[in-house]
């Protein structure tokens, strides 16, 4: 399958009084057309920054894109001007933001917000735009679409709002959708509904999706391939089954571990969390890695291909892993 999205050598930093701090450093990330790709990492790993950079929505400064290229379809994003981006955003790429409380504008009704997006991206007006808006609300399985249209965001529940946000993003008619932790601020019971909806919509509408989450179990339901992001770098990526069954990178393993039970296990977690420094050199995971050695502090880990669809960035491979 042809790669629809290709990110190469992307380095993004943030400037502050203390100097620059690298937050995204990706060698290569490819997503095929119609595929759902999951990106997993803890908060602060640079997921959202990466998402915003795909839309060229990072505030520069303080953000600085040092190098790299982003290709989406046949568009080379980074050199585009703001005016060109206004026509790409929405029409080609749309984004579902993480906080349903703050993503909707409080002073407009839901209907006004959807219709505005439809009018901009699909050139529909008046009744037609309204009709389309109703369809969109029905598409995300909200009952009483007519009523929902007239409501202000604060009159809706969190789950309803997130569905509205998805409806607005879909109303753009984009072929590429970025979902940035769409279930982050929702109750667990509502999360499942939203995830199911997203998975269904992805299949029926055949859009390409970049799904960002802080939790492996969330992406495992919706995505075919996943990547694990640590301090802005991808440490392991591959097919979701493969990674869940045979995690290789120590970071992935920690994420997949059950909750710590014994005192010893808890202490280990605490120790690993106490270090939050950025590595100037070597492996980004060196401070928290249980099996870090001298080499990890000095050299960037190489990329190991394990099997057809599985790669890992680590100096050490378990016996037999490379053979598979």
């Amino acid at each position, binding site marked *: 399958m042809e790669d629809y999205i290709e990110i190469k050598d992307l380095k993004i930093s943030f400037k502050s009084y203390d100097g620059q701090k690298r937050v995204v450093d990706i060698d290569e990330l490819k997503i095929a057309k119609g595929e759902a790709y999951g990106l997993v990492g803890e908060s602060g790993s640079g997921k959202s920054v990466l998402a915003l950079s795909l839309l060229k*929505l990072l505030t520069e400064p303080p953000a600085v894109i040092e190098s790299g290229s982003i290709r989406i379809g046949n568009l080379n994003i980074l050199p585009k001007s703001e005016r060109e981006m206004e026509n790409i955003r929405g029409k080609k790429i749309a984004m579902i933001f993480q906080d349903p409380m703050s*993503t909707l504008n409080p*002073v407009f009704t839901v209907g006004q917000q959807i219709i505005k997006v439809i009018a901009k991206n699909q050139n529909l007006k008046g009744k037609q735009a309204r009709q389309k808006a109703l369809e969109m609300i029905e598409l995300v399985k909200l009952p009483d679409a007519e009523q929902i249209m007239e409501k202000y965001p604060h009159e809706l529940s969190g789950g309803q709002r997130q569905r509205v946000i998805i409806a607005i993003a879909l109303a753009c008619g984009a072929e590429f959708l970025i979902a940035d932790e769409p279930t982050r601020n929702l109750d667990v019971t509502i999360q499942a509904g939203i995830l199911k909806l997203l998975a269904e919509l992805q299949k029926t509408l055949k859009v390409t999706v970049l799904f960002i989450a802080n939790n492996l179990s969330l992406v495992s339901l919706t995505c075919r391939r996943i990547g694990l992001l640590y301090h802005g770098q991808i440490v392991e990526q591959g097919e979701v089954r493969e990674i869940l069954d045979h995690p290789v990178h120590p970071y992935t393993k920690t994420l997949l571990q059950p909750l710590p039970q014994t005192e010893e296990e808890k202490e280990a977690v605490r120790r690993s969390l106490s270090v939050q420094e950025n590595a100037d050199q070597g492996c980004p995971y060196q401070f928290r890695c249980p099996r870090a050695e001298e080499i990890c502090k000095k050299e960037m880990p190489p990329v190991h291909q394990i099997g057809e669809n599985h790669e890992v960035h680590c100096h050490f491979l378990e016996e037999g892993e490379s053979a598979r």
Partner: protein
Amino acid sequence: MKNFIIKRILLGVVVLLGVVAITFVVTRVIPSNPALQWVGSRATAEQIAAAEEELGLNKPIPVQLGIYLNDMLHGDLGYSLKSHRPVVDEIMENLPPTLELVLLGTIFAIVAGMALGVLTASHKNKWQDHLGRFFSVGSVSLPTFWVALLLQLLFYGVLKLLPIGGRLSMDAQLFGQVPDVTGFLLLDCLLTGNFSVFGDALSHLILPCITLALYPTGMVARMTRSALLEILNEDYIKAAQSYGIKRKIILWKYALKNSLGPTVTVVTLSVGYTLVNTFLVESVFNWPGLGSYISDAVMNMDYPAIMGVTLFSACAYVVLNMIADIVVALDPRVRI
């Protein structure tokens, strides 16, 4: 929500009572001989005695306050020393021209101030921003009475474009059949279709209006700028951008509407300032309104008149603020 409104109205009533109490203290307790002030320095001994009787100065202070309050509630603000007519009547006569100025000045300030606010916020830290911010600090630092004189000097003295003062030219007053329906001259002219008088009245309005609008323009511009900068950082603005909505539309339609809440508050605050500024400006422009009335009263030491206008403006200000607070709290479109 209901609780908030009831609370706010109660607070308004308490503040109104407080306002009355303060004016009472100022008029009856601070002066060494209030009766003398109430009838003027050239009064006879009998007149002073009568005033003492009328004001109840021989009664204990709390009783005096009760009488005072009772009079207020019945709309009795005493009689003007100069004209010997009820102060309430004179206030009502002088109110429409002043309201005309305040309203038009405020509308001008809202439009100009918001435009300036958007311009400065969208060009943050560029020269437009620096210039705009300098203007908004400058406009609140200008003595309005001086601005009035400067504008007269420029537009009447040098350019000879606009009349120096008054509400109508002599010609219009004599031959123009000045309409009187509501007391708002511009509105009356439109209602009766009298366009020659309308033009004349408008030309007289421009300078006082601009003078009064300067201060609130600066306030609104400043508020709009800071509110916009805050709002432009919100997630929903990023979201709107990600749907491909154009920056211009985001600024003028989305964000501006979000900044309405704080702007409403600033506008009502500045209406109070504008009203008090008419006291300084109207006499310069010879504008026949409340401001000229009170500056005449100050000149003639016409205490009941000073008192009446003060009480009236203070109450208007308190009520206006109360309404603004309730509107802001009620309407989801201005609430943030």
